[in-house]
């Protein structure tokens, strides 16, 4: 592709990085509207000008699905937004979503050469821009669907892994049906990530697109309970199954007092607000603790904890405090979310860990006994291991405490399918390239294989699985040794 950009690289890197327009922090702390407003076309073109079109683009190497960022940037620069979107979609099926939620700083933008001295190209913001442009253009062309193969695939779970696999498989001419346990489609994208970060209408549009491509959806089916994997194959006639059930099981701290009223898992708190829309109670029936004028603490340092604490703020909490046992440098949350949270008045209490929840005589939470932590030597994950400081206990007052320290595998399928291999944390074992499990015709990918990871990794796994499934359906070969060599 010719370099359409007339400015010499030296000039380009002098341009300051574009600023994403945002809702005013004082306003948005009280509503669920999306925080980032999106770039205008001029700003997007301007930002794309900063890309110096590296010979060996670090950005692409660092993107888990290898989006051809350099080419996308050139197309944006040329004003070819729809072509840029199409180029993006060659590797990334859900750009409107990943543009919003990818941890860009540790992926594409972390690899951008401009970041070495100054600010990297705002790849995420541009990705979001072209995806939104495409959505609003009404010119979203349906991809070509290959002639029907007569084979059918069942996909279990409608998160990013399941949705991307569905899209690829239906294009190959297979019949595809997605089974989802909840009443809405999208997995964590609808029940976990809040509206102010990822509007649900975007997920709905992606699902509708898949519908138009011919993907069938059935909600309210808990595979393993409503129907087993074996029944899907033997009775309902599916030739292959992709298990993409995520890592939805909440982890509690296991400290005294976790049964007090007011102690939530982040999953429950977020599911009540996002899936059940309890922030619109009483218009919606599902209730949530009335946080108005109350003190809320959230335990954890990842995206989940950050989403919960910002949600609590929007529900009217007097104080919304993030309690994390390491320091800010170790927080796995996206950098942008940390910045937004600060602006919204979230308090950060780093190097602090609750060891007990305290309640009144009726069982309602009144506070958390916490210890101060200090960082010691790095552990196996490379992060410095926190250890309690003796004699540093103090009570943090709280009416609501939300535990967002992680999740593990949901065991419903594994427990009803004994011939699926699982590791010691109960995650399903699958081949890293073909996504095959040891059970013939069954593939698995996304968080249920890797443990809680990212949207883009789940999506990448879904696409790999689609390739693996398509190959299996075409050849009918199930090399047992290959599958067992995991």
């Amino acid at each position, binding site marked *: 592709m010719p370099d359409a950009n007339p400015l010499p690289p030296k000039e380009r890197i002098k341009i300051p990085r574009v600023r994403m327009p945002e809702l005013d922090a004082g306003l948005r702390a009280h509503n669920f509207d999306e925080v980032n407003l999106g770039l205008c076309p001029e700003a997007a073109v301007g930002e794309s000008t900063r890309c110096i079109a590296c010979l060996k683009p670090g950005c692409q190497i660092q993107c888990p699905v290898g989006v051809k960022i350099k080419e996308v940037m050139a197309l944006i620069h040329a004003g070819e937004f729809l072509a840029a979107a199409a180029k993006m979609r060659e590797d990334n099926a859900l750009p409107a979503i990943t543009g919003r939620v990818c941890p860009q700083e540790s992926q594409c933008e972390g690899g951008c050469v401009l970041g070495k001295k100054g600010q990297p190209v705002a790849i995420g913001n541009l990705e979001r821009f072209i995806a939104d442009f495409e959505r609003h253009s009404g010119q979203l062309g349906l991809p070509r669907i290959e002639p029907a193969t007569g084979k059918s695939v069942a996909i279990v779970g409608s998160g990013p892994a399941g949705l991307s696999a569905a899209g690829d498989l239906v294009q190959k001419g297979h019949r595809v049906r997605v089974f989802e346990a909840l009443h809405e489609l999208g997995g964590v994208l609808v029940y976990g990530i809040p509206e102010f970060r990822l509007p649900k209408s975007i997920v709905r549009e992606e699902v509708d697109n898949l519908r138009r491509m011919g993907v069938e959806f059935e909600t309210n089916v808990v595979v393993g309970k409503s129907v087993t994997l074996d029944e899907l194959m033997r009775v309902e006639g599916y030739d292959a199954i992709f298990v993409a059930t995520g890592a939805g099981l909440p982890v509690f701290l296991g400290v005294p007092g976790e049964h007090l009223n007011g102690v939530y898992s982040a999953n429950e708190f977020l*599911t009540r607000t996002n899936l059940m829309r309890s922030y619109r109670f009483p218009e919606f029936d599902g209730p949530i603790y009335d946080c108005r004028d109350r003190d809320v603490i959230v335990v954890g340092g990842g995206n989940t904890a950050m989403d919960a604490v910002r949600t609590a703020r929007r529900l009217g909490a007097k104080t919304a405090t993030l309690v994390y046992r390491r320091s800010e440098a170790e927080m796995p949350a996206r950098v942008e979310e940390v910045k937004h949270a600060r602006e919204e008045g979230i308090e950060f209490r780093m190097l602090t860990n609750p060891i007990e929840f305290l309640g009144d005589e009726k069982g309602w939470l009144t506070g958390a006994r916490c210890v101060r932590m200090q960082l010691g030597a790095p552990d196996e994950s490379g992060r410095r291991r926190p250890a309690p400081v003796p004699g540093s206990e103090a009570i943090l007052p709280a009416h609501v405490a939300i535990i967002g320290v992680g999740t593990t595998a949901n065991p*419903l399928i594994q427990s009803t399918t004994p011939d699926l291999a699982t590791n010691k944390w109960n995650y399903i074992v699958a081949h890293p390239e073909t996504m095959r499990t040891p059970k013939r015709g069954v593939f698995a990918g996304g968080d249920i294989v890797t443990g809680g990871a990212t949207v883009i990794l789940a999506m990448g796994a879904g696409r790999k699985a689609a390739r693996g499934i398509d190959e299996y359906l075409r050849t009918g070969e199930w090399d047992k040794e290959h599958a067992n060599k995991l």
Partner: protein
Amino acid sequence: MFRIVEARDAGLNIRQFVIEAPRVARKQRPGQFVILRVVDNGERIPLTIKSADPAAGTITIVVQAIGKTTSLLNSLGAGDSILDVVGPLGHPSAIAKYGTAVILAGSVGTAMALPTARALKDADNHVIFIEGARTRDMVIFEDEVRAASHEAYILTDDGSYGEQGLVTGKLEQLLADGRKLDFVLAVGPVPMMRAVARVTAPLGIKTMVSLNSIMVDGTGMCGGCRVLLGHESRFACVDGPEFDASQVNFDVLMQRNAMYRSQECRSMQAFEQHREEELARLRAAVDARRKKSAELRARLQAQGERHHA
């Protein structure tokens, strides 16, 4: 959408529904439940499956109106639809040949315990069914209770029907009579189940209780349904709903079930004031949804034919 094919009153504020839910009907076992959501803006509530007809693809549930969602549900009739029904959820009751099995059920718990009672009878247990109700109008399914057991006792709190007294009183009387009881299942209000546990635990009689904690997803994802067993936390939706009564912390269960009381009252008051509007809205929404899915199906079919042509 899940169509109601039959609806009838079973007692005061208690209504029985037969609903089309073929997947659930095929797989359900005694003791399992569904979670349903009546309308778009509604909450998800758990209800026990009383029976099923796999051939017809229907399940039967029995609902006692106590708050907004159950009241709304109980205003529906045959021909109406429920937006979402998912299941079967939870572990089935553990059925074995215990010997003499006693079922204690209070109010709507009678409907919930019936399938397990039948299964215990089929497994050659001598089944004693003790049904308790506040008053005469709340004695439900007496014929089915008698059919599912070898001995049946009906009690009302006010003595307006059957014997006067509490189900635990009857249980104690059986024990005082020297009856050897091998298995007990209690289903009903928490104080009743706790009282049963207090009678049987010291005697070491295997006793199960069906815990009605507040649920959201029913798949083990939220942890909102957690109950305390000894010092261990368990999720009622996936580890239960039946648990060993001697381990259950009933106080924590009652405390957690009171979590949303003020919001529930608000919802209920609003519903009582606007019952007719709510119902009209529900029916309009169902019609709109039907139309939309018919259109979508037609469009997809047309498109599909084009794509694969």
